[in-house]
């Protein structure tokens, strides 16, 4: 065939390869907007503004759930009795001294995991798969733990946390409950979503 003689195979391979690379780059670039379209929209992000909540009505031993970024945030007014139990639990916990820095701000890296000892502020989502744990505050034997000192129990996969949101060993959840950024505006109001430093 006459055509055989005029085909430059090197040039053909080069053209095929460059066309494939340019076309491939085009396809990848075209895919980006579709992938980005799945990210939280501007409206969803705007809904994540800080919230100020009134805690004056929360009595000792009570828990109230507030919504911040549509996440449930637990605010617990812990009794001295409950606080006294925390230390004794250390051997049964996975991370008793809150050494995972991702789970709380610096100002909550302390034995009570809070700014003021009695006030616990944590995101009420199990660190296993994100269910809302139940608040089981009473110091009494429970079906899931005969030696219960009060805390949180996740109904989904039975993870347990103490009243500082610290996770027990041997449960599915790998981390302590997260403490969100927050600060006290005055004795009866906290703002969730803003660090004390930023609030200045």
């Amino acid at each position: 065939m006459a055509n055989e003689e005029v085909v430059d195979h090197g040039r053909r391979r080069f053209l095929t390869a460059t066309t494939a690379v340019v076309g491939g780059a085009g396809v990848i670039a075209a895919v980006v907007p579709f992938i980005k379209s799945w990210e939280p929209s501007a409206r969803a992000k705007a809904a994540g503004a800080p919230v100020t909540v009134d805690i004056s009505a929360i009595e000792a031993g009570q828990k109230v759930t507030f919504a911040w970024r549509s996440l449930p945030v637990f605010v617990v007014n812990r009794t001295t009795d409950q606080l006294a139990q925390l230390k004794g639990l250390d051997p049964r916990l996975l991370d008793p001294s809150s050494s995972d820095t991702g789970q709380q701000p610096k100002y909550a890296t302390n034995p009570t995991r809070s700014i003021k000892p009695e006030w616990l502020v944590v995101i009420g989502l199990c660190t296993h798969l994100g269910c809302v744990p139940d608040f089981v505050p009473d110091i009494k034997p429970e079906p899931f733990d005969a030696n219960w000192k009060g805390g949180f129990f996740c109904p989904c996969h039975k993870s347990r946390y103490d009243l500082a949101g610290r996770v027990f060993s041997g449960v599915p959840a790998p981390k302590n409950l997260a403490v969100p950024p927050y600060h006290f505006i005055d004795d009866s109001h906290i703002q969730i979503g803003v660090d004390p430093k930023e609030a200045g």
Partner: protein
Amino acid sequence: MANAFSRIGDWFNERAPGLMPAYRKHMTEYYAPKNFNLWYYFGSLALLVLVNQIVTGIFLTMNYKTSAAEAFNSVEYIMRDVEWGWLIRYMHSTGASLFFVVVFLHMFRGIMYGSFKKPRELVWILGMLIFLVLMAEAFMGYVLPWGNMSFWGAKVIISLFGTIPFIGSTLVEWIMGDFLPADATLNRFFALHVIALPLVLLLLVVLHLFALHEVGSNNPDGVDVKHGPKGNRWNPEKPIDAIPFHPYYTVKDLFGVGFFITIAAFIIFFAPTFGGWFLEHDNFTPANNLVTPSHIKPSWYFTPFYAILRMIPSFFGTAIWGVIGMFGAILLLALLPWIDKGEVRSVRFRGLGFRIALGVLVFSFLALGMVGAGVTSELIPAWFPGADVTTWENAFGRLMVLGYFGFFVFVWIYTRFGFEKTKPVPERVTMHD
């Protein structure tokens, strides 16, 4: 009249000469072994349910509202106000559960008779892909009514991706399009459920059938009829132990369809929620992002895999091991053609070890389903008052996890190192003439 029909036929054959040969290849001249038994109903029944899901699904979209604010009420509207809407919805929800019933039985048939073995590995892999897509399809469909179990089911399943190191939390937000399952999540799940995944599913089903028709069907004896003697009543070239799919197996399958539809109709009319197994009670309350249902559990067909997830604890500060175990349970099934190195296909002629292992696999799978569905956490206190439920449930569940994964380890060792003592495989199917 006959003349008119044949002229229409000729008209098509001239313009699409490939149609009749394709019809013959897949129907009248698809020669299948003649010894199919009850276990061979479930492939065609799966097709039937697929058609049911597509047809009822199309009609459901005509009244369903895709928004977090309206979805729950629109489903109630379908149930109460739309003429026959309740029937269409129950056909769809019952169909979803029955889909998994027939698919599980279909898969068990494949393992039992060695249908996954050479030369049908591709058929098996395509089947496993169908199973994966089907699980995604079922999960997203379950989210659409936006009941409280829909919401929390979505939350838990999406959070599985959050256990992946480094990119996890970004990935979770990307999937949800928000910080929690929300309107954006519902809308994209709807799009995937009604168009993207069904397209993929249909394509895979067609490929599954094409791949099957290339190599031919296996049978309960695991005998290769293609390599046996030739010459049957219809064709001297074709295997003696095979019969044309149409009309023989189309008629057989129709009998199965009649039986199956009777059972399905009974469920649809008399027990559509199936005691909370097909439609969970907690899903009859609207989604609430601040209250988790007290007994959160997935639909029954996910419970064995969910139990594996639950039974594997966290190590090294991450919960990913349970997720790996859960997906590994499916991956190992897909790899079965390369794990099971035994030459003999059918359980009828395989060693005692394989039979026992298969029994252990089925028992562990069912038991894990019970653990995942929360049945064991109710039975333990009822049968053994005073026992520590969590400890005993974990012990039992972990034993069953070992049973499930043990099947694959055992079968590999058993067949790879020649421990299996098989019986002689006959030349022809055991049921002939």
